């Protein structure tokens, strides 16, 4: 049994909220540079160039790359031999978010009630997904996400007979409808199978994979490649003003499902694809 003080969680969450909003991941940055080189549209090239410049300025001046510093989705994998001490873990997580958003000069974008819409003032609460795993470590992933892209995510319960084609058509359709709204070039996460909520969670998790990461299942690796090509063939381009770079990458995750179902979720993240991970 390993004791972990919840203050350590607060500190890690706070630092990750700030850092994720200031510093774009190297994998995303590299892919943006590659996309700029390959972009055929002059305006698209100019836009990608500015997006790269923006990431440089944000890192250099330690300011948020985007003004929508998002709602924080947080994944926490807790080793089953860990014992948290010193307080309530959930409170400690939200305390970290609160401190991070205030000390990091990040925008507070969370309303307390979805219909009455009063701002909570410190960007809490986070949406927390926890899971228990073997071991005595704690892995925390902080993913602040803006709602320009979040509002474009979709889920559909397909019929088993819709099969692979039904899935791919749906993914491409969701991206086509989203058009310029999620600030392309985007990162696409697809969750196939499980249940209604599992598919959405898979899609969200898929989005967090490294841009260069290839699916270790060959069938799904090919699907990722094919979907990326189909999406980029839409011509939407950077900011939806035409071009080849509509998506930077497509990631697919799957899970066993029911004999009568084929849930598919499509999560879209913008080029400001922010996430950080830390192991305690």
């Amino acid at each position, binding site marked *: 049994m390993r004791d972990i003080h919840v203050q350590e969680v607060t500190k890690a969450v706070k630092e990750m909220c700030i850092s994720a909003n200031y510093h774009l991941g190297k994998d995303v940055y590299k892919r943006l540079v590659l996309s700029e080189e390959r972009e*055929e*549209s*002059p*305006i*698209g090239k*100019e*836009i990608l160039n*500015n*997006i790269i*410049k*923006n990431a440089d*300025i*944000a890192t250099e*001046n330690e*300011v*948020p*790359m*985007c*003004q*929508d*510093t998002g709602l924080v989705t947080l994944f926490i994998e807790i080793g089953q031999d860990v014992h948290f001490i010193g307080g309530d873990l959930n409170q400690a997580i939200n305390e970290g978010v609160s401190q991070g958003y205030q000390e990091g*000069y*990040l*925008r*507070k*974008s969370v309303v307390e009630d979805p219909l009455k819409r009063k*701002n909570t003032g410190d960007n809490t609460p986070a949406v927390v997904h926890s899971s228990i795993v073997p071991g005595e470590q704690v892995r925390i992933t902080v993913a602040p996400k803006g709602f*320009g892209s979040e*509002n474009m995510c979709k889920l559909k319960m397909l019929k088993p007979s819709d099969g692979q084609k039904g899935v791919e058509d749906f993914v491409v359709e969701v991206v086509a409808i989203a*058009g*310029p*709204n999620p*600030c392309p070039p985007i990162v696409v996460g697809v969750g196939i199978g499980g249940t209604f909520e599992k598919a959405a969670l898979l899609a969200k998790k898929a989005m967090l994979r490294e841009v260069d990461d290839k699916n270790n299942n060959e069938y799904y690796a090919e699907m990722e490649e094919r979907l990326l090509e189909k999406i980029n*063939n*839409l*011509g*939407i*381009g950077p*900011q*939806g*003003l*035409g*071009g*080849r770079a509509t998506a930077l990458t497509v990631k697919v995750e799957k899970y066993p499902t029911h004999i009568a179902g084929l849930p598919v979720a499509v999560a879209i993240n*913008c*080029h*400001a694809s922010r996430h950080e991970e830390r192991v305690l």
Partner: protein
Amino acid sequence: MGNEIKRISTPFTKDAVKSLKAGDIVNITGTIYTGRDAAHQRLVDTLKEGKALPFAIKDSIIYYVGPTPAKPGQVIGSAGPTTSYRMDDLTVPLLEQGLSGMIGKGARAEKVIAGMKEYGAVYFGAIGGAAALIASSIKKSTVIAYEDLGPEAIRELEVVDFPVIVVIDSEGNNMYDTEKIKYAR
């Protein structure tokens, strides 16, 4: 469509509006106003009550943005555009009052485009997510109305060479419709 930059200054007169075409890369210098969801609701409610708006709307430009808080020493925090369609139901009454430019990101409703054609206005796209870069063209920021709305308050911004692209011009030419076909396969 060259990469040559057109420069405009405020007030953004109807003649200037007509001179801009979809695809133009434009730098704006002068005074612009911020406003997003909640501020738009209040502006439209104010008009319904027959009261005066908190700024002179004729020949003005509204920027759809809710910036991050400024760090000490900064004029404004990061300040990129927000998605425009949420303002679609609240835009035509402002166009009627003479609003001539809007800066945001993403598609607009048909009724907004029809209003832009009727009253003469341009829809500019700023680069979504390029918030730190855009902030460097903002030289002064003053909250002039609805301070209680926090990031959604109306600010008067002094900008120099604020970078935008004409996405929909006053004739209704719309880059979101015309460009993607060129790169689709």
